């Protein structure tokens, strides 16, 4: 009796959590062990090398966007590997699972993996790479010493990290949502998905989404308010313009996501009826709201990549960018239009022909500014002195693949055509062509291009090219068959099909494509290792290895914490390119510089959010209150602190700057 009483008390203390939620089937258990091994292994290594203090001081508490950017990129790469593991399982399953063969995964496990792949690739890989590169580059390009709100920026990163951690914990305890990457109700409602998978999905994205919102606010204000004197908006590098466009979308689209996820969470947790099938709920409203965020999200990811392509096109053609002003207008046309096309994701839901026609036409119109940008890149390359390095390869591949994928998109913008292709593999092929070429290739190009600026050496060119060709061939092999399969009627998220359909050969080709992509990834990892190996040889780069045009290339490598010892003087576009033409020697006096102090509070706030998220998933209410209290405490504690900056005197700046100058000389 007593024991029974105790166990129920204890049980309610832990909410829904119990040991039965640890993974049981071999594939999941293996994945869970592998996943748990990464942080544990890292922790052991840090303890063994006695690096905890260093890690805390230099990274965990840093407010420096350059370091935060690198952390974003590391997280994104690790998550990319996890997303790739999901891809291998998906493609293997679909290549095998025909007729009497049921492949390697159960149906429900397959749905979980499909959902995990989409969620992780969009929220933690693409978003992570994007925010990483923005953190690294934007302050440098606008001639700023820092972002507008360094603490907010750091908190944004740690919230992103907390969301990432939460979604990965679901692999170890509990299960993953099996409702696709956008979790449509009523399937995602409690009645049809009673386990914790959807709750993990909701709270992970909620936390990461708030992090993105904070980062978005920071960068909008940074670009508007922190530009160096003389750099008017129309003199900004195009990457900054595209980031401003993208971040404007972030600040207005992510609140919609926050609301949508909250409403679904309320339905699942306290029994409201927003999207339920009965009681006056309307599940179509969920689809409407989630795409009102989801479509801008596509452009949030792709615009910064467009910006990178613009930089790469100009620098590697040794020519100024063709049609700067038209590029800016194209960005803002895309920003506005991307808010007016969301219905094309659910033409088939049953709206009237007037509604479908309007959104179909808007979707076709948005191809126009995108086309303007493509032509501008081509004209930039036309008659340029092309420096055929990997970033340019990625750009050219992007132009080709993006055009094919884009035309498939315009095709589907016609509602009657969409009725045939909706939810088919044709759609899957289309959006992968857009996102992989438009986003991933762009960030690959960007990383290759800016890598020497931060690390002091270039990436190995030959291996980079091997990686490029493996990726491109693999990518086309993996997705062109899906267009055909889509026309043949294959739907997305298919874990098994009849052998009489004759689809298997095409699925096998797609699986072979993945083998090539894996080879590409292996080449990229090799490239990294070999380049570190050769860093003092031929790969050693000065501060300006590509003959750059924008301000970041004027800085010494490694870049000092305050970026610019003396703020640059800007009067034209491509400020550094113009400065290089003159023989100007900067002899202005140094001035004192304020630098934000390190603070662990961003980490504390995010840790509170993680605890809160985990507790709400498992209905452990006391722990949820505790987590929230930790976050609020962190916030109030921070607001009481008046001394958040320290000062480098003019003499110190001078000394540090001249020391670097000496180093460069010797």
């Amino acid at each position, binding site marked *: 009796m007593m024991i029974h009483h105790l166990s129920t008390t204890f049980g309610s203390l832990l909410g829904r959590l119990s040991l039965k939620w640890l993974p049981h089937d071999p594939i999941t258990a293996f994945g869970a062990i592998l996943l748990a091994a990464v942080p544990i292994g890292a922790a052991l290594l840090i303890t063994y090398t006695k690096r905890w203090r260093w890690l805390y001081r230099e990274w965990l508490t840093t407010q420096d966007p350059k370091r935060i950017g690198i952390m974003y990129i590391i997280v994104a790469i690790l998550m990319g590997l996890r997303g790739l593991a999901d891809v291998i399982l998906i493609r293997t399953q679909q290549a095998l699972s025909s007729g009497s063969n049921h492949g390697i995964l159960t149906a429900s496990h397959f749905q979980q993996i499909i959902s995990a792949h989409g969620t992780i690739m969009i929220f933690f890989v693409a978003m992570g790479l994007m925010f990483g590169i923005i953190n690294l580059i934007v302050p440098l390009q606008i001639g700023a010493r820092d972002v507008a709100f360094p603490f907010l920026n750091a908190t944004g990163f740690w919230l992103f990290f907390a969301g990432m951690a939460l979604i990965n914990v679901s692999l170890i305890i509990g299960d993953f949502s099996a409702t696709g990457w956008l979790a449509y109700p009523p399937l995602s409602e409690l009645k049809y998905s009673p386990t914790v998978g959807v709750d993990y999905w909701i709270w992970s994205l909620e936390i990461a989404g708030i992090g993105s919102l904070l980062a978005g606010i920071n960068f909008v204000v940074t670009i508007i*308010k922190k530009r160096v004197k003389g750099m008017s908006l129309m003199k900004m590098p195009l990457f900054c313009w595209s980031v401003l466009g993208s971040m404007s979308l972030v600040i207005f689209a992510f609140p919609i996501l926050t609301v949508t996820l909250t409403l679904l969470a309320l339905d699942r947790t306290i029994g409201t009826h927003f999207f339920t099938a009965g009681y006056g709920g*309307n599940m179509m409203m969920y689809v409407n709201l989630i795409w009102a965020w989801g479509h801008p999200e596509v452009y949030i990811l792709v615009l910064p990549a467009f910006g990178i392509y613009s930089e790469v096109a100009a620098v590697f053609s040794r020519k100024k960018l063709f049609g700067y002003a038209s590029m800016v207008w194209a960005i803002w046309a895309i920003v506005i239009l991307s808010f007016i096309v969301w219905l094309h994701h659910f033409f088939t839901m049953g709206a009237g022909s007037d509604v479908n026609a309007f959104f179909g036409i808007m979707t076709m119109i948005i191809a126009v500014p995108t086309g303007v940008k493509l032509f501008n890149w081509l004209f930039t390359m036309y008659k340029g002195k092309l420096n055929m390095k990997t970033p340019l390869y990625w750009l050219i591949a992007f132009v080709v693949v993006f055009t094919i994928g884009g035309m498939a998109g315009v095709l589907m913008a016609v509602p009657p055509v969409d009725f045939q292709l909706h939810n088919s593999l044709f759609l899957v092929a289309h959006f992968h062509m857009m996102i992989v070429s438009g986003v991933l290739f762009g960030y690959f190009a960007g990383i290759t291009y800016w890598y020497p600026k931060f690390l002091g050496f270039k990436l190995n060119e030959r291996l980079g090219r091997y990686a490029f060709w493996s990726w491109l061939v693999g990518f086309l092999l993996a997705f062109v068959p899906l267009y055909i399969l889509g026309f043949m009627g294959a739907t997305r998220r298919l874990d098994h099909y009849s052998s009489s359909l004759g689809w298997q050969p095409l699925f096998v080709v797609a699986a072979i494509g993945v083998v090539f992509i894996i080879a590409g990834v292996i080449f990229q990892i090799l490239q990294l290792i070999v380049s570190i190996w050769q860093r003092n040889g031929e790969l050693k780069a000065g501060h300006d290895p590509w003959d750059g045009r924008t301000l970041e290339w004027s800085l010494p490598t490694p870049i000092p914490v305050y970026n610019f010892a003396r703020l640059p003087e800007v009067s034209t576009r491509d400020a550094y390119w113009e400065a290089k033409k003159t023989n100007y020697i900067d002899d202005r006096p140094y001035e004192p510089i304020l630098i934000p102090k390190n603070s662990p509070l961003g980490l504390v706030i995010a840790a509170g959010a993680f605890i809160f998220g985990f507790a709400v998933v498992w209905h452990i209410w006391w722990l949820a209150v505790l987590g929230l209290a930790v976050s609020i405490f962190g916030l109030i504690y921070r607001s009481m602190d008046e001394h958040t900056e320290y000062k480098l005197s003019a003499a110190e700046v001078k000394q540090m700057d001249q020391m670097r100058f000496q180093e460069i000389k010797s």
Partner: protein
Amino acid sequence: MSSISQNAEVARADRLIERHEKDNTTIFGFWVYLMTDCVLFASLFATFAVLRNNTFGGPSGATLFSLPYVLVETLSLLTSSFTCGLALVSAQARRKTQTIIWFIITFALGLTFLSLELSEFHKFVVMGDSWRRSGFLSAYFTLVGTHGLHISIGLLWMAVMIVFIYKRGINKLTMKRIRMLSMFWHFLDVVWIFIFTIVYLFGALHA
């Protein structure tokens, strides 16, 4: 000689401008945050508008709401927005005690508003018309409740702020925070205009 002193003066003014710029940047950043919050409320308003007739046999707004009660709520919030403005004006005149008094009045009015709202919620729940009853009531509780949550955060902030002003007086830092707090409070009143009109007045029209 004079050119050197002029340069020094310019440099000092530059630093002054830079500091003003920094404050302005924070205020501007807070404004951007408020704009994102507007979109958050807009999503909730859209949801409410879509679900407004989905009463599923439960009560509609017209049978549930009492307009005179809501008018009292509205007037207390509107007045608190005004007194919050007076607090800002006093702070700008560097009148510490006056600022604190206006903030205490604002706090009291805000607390009145919040307790009126919560007792209304309580009444509905006790009658069996909670958020579980229908899509309409889910949307109602969530929209109005989100506003109430913002009000609670504002009250917590105001309480911290009153202590802060009492202890540290009115300086550049407290001034910046007072400015942001008053923006937040006015913003919540602006959102309430739409809740008052769309939820309560339009709700009464449907009777």
